[in-house]
């Protein structure tokens, strides 16, 4: 049956996608690989849920089965939440279907002439708007979308036996124990960049953060290269997106891949020694100067205030 198919390995994101797909007014079919998840998703009222039963624990191994299902049923659109698994599954499915794909759509609007999507290019400095008129796969960062329950909606649930691709096998999973860092909902954020000389100088950032009641975040290099903060702490196109009332950077140059993650901040403050650093153009208030001089003074002032 023509309609919109949705999938996510994360239940909440699948639930949010059901709501997004329903905006089209078309039939929504939720694909699930787990019958318990399917029961939860029922509450969100897709018209159909199809449970694929196979013998692999890896969702990515179902791409071909999903592609065949969508092809056989002449689906119009496959929406997948942009998680690591979701992106790979989506791209493989698009490959099997030989159809177009929009990755990480920032917006998706169902219009008469087609589905209009926007996405960021060049690290976030360009917005590309496309119109989808034929079968396509779209990934959506669904973490920010609201899922809404639909009471008493009739949902048809069917199970299908499928053959998962056996060629990638799971050896083990190593969950990382971590303090839950929730930058997305932080009210204030202090962000350190590669301008920080030594790990012990993190103390300066911590003191400022404590005075402001802020969370500490960083650029990618601080997390991935220097590993001074966990990877969940970095902001940007490949990291967290934040929307605090205040973002203060110290020693952050403000390349677009980072700035794309702070655009929804109410006030952006930058402290950087280079007046030509792009962060100055992205900021509401800047101080051009050595953070080793400025930040301690700021800490003093805040203590007085």
């Amino acid at each position, binding site marked *: 049956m023509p309609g919109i198919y949705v999938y996510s390995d994360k239940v909440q994101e699948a639930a949010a996608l059901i709501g997004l797909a329903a905006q089209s007014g078309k039939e929504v079919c939720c694909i699930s690989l787990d019958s318990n998840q399917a029961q939860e998703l029922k509450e969100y009222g897709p018209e159909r849920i199809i449970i694929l039963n196979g013998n692999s624990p890896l969702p990515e191994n179902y791409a071909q089965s999903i592609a065949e299902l969508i092809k056989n049923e002449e689906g119009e659109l496959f929406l997948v939440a942009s998680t*690591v698994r979701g992106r790979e599954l989506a791209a493989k499915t*698009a490959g099997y279907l030989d159809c177009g794909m929009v990755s990480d759509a920032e917006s998706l609007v169902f219009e008469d002439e087609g589905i209009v999507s926007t996405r960021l290019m060049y690290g976030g400095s360009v917005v590309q*708007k*496309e*119109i989808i008129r034929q079968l396509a796969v779209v990934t959506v960062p669904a973490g920010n979308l609201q899922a809404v329950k639909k009471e008493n909606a009739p949902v048809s649930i069917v199970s299908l036996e499928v053959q998962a691709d056996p060629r990638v096998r799971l050896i083990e999973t190593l969950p990382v124990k971590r303090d839950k860092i929730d930058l997305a909902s932080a009210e204030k954020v202090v962000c350190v960049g590669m301008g920080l000389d030594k790990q012990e100088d993190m103390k300066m950032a911590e003191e400022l953060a404590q005075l402001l009641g802020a969370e500490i975040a960083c650029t990618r290099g601080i997390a991935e290269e220097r590993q001074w903060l966990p990877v969940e702490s970095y902001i940007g196109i490949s990291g967290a997106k934040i929307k605090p009332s205040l973002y203060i950077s110290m020693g952050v140059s403000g390349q677009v891949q980072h700035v794309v993650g702070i655009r929804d901040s109410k006030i952006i403050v930058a402290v950087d020694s280079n007046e030509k650093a792009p962060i100055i153009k*992205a900021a509401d208030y800047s101080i051009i100067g050595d953070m080793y001089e400025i930040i301690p*003074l700021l800490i003093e002032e805040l203590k007085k205030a």
Partner: protein
Amino acid sequence: MSRIIACYKWVADEADMKINPDMSVDLSKAKGKISDYDRNVIEAAVQMAKISGDLAVTLTFGSPKAKLSLKDALSRGPAEGFWVNSEMAEQADGAASAKVLAAAIDKIGDYKLIICGEGASDTFARQVGPSIAARLGIPCVSSAIKMELSGNEVKVSRKLEDGIEIVAAQLPAVVCILPEINRPPIPGLKAVLDAGKKPTREYKIEELGLLDSDLGARNETIEFKAYVMNRKNIVLDGETAVDKVQALVGSLKKEGII
């Protein structure tokens, strides 16, 4: 000895991007570069081949401008460079790129591993690697931060949202890597000079059994505009650092932030 193929994209350097007053984007003066993550891709192929005794080669789908990329890519260590030369590359979407690359890989033949970057620095669409795998009918593993060949498998550590996952994929396979996987060195002078002597092979679309008409974009782009960020852009002034800091605290109070 079989091939380990490093796929890379020759992209416009975003640092040279000009924004016109109407917010349209001018890349006509932009220099080309090997997409950022793809430098890690080439390094990964070279490292893997060194250990396994296989042959690291590079492959790109690019317009005539991408000719410049061959020497750059080969200076990073691979033995041979393949290039699918077509103007169509400028407009190609992920589906078209994957289709061309898969056809080229098929033509090159005798491969055990295809390495791609997780995403290109221009589109960052993260679709070409998995799509190549689907088209070749071989397995794919994405988000790789470590990999190792063992027997007829490649063992890969993947970075997920909530942990690390270790999987093994049957060869031949596509692996899409994150830049954490290695630190590509800057090629030395000798490597740059040697690169000019390494063999390169150019393919035309038709030689791959494809037509230009197979490579049109699936979705129509209706707008391509610079993102506008309207900020106050106030640089706090003052005789001394103390003055500037006080001015900042004053402004933040006025904003009702502190």
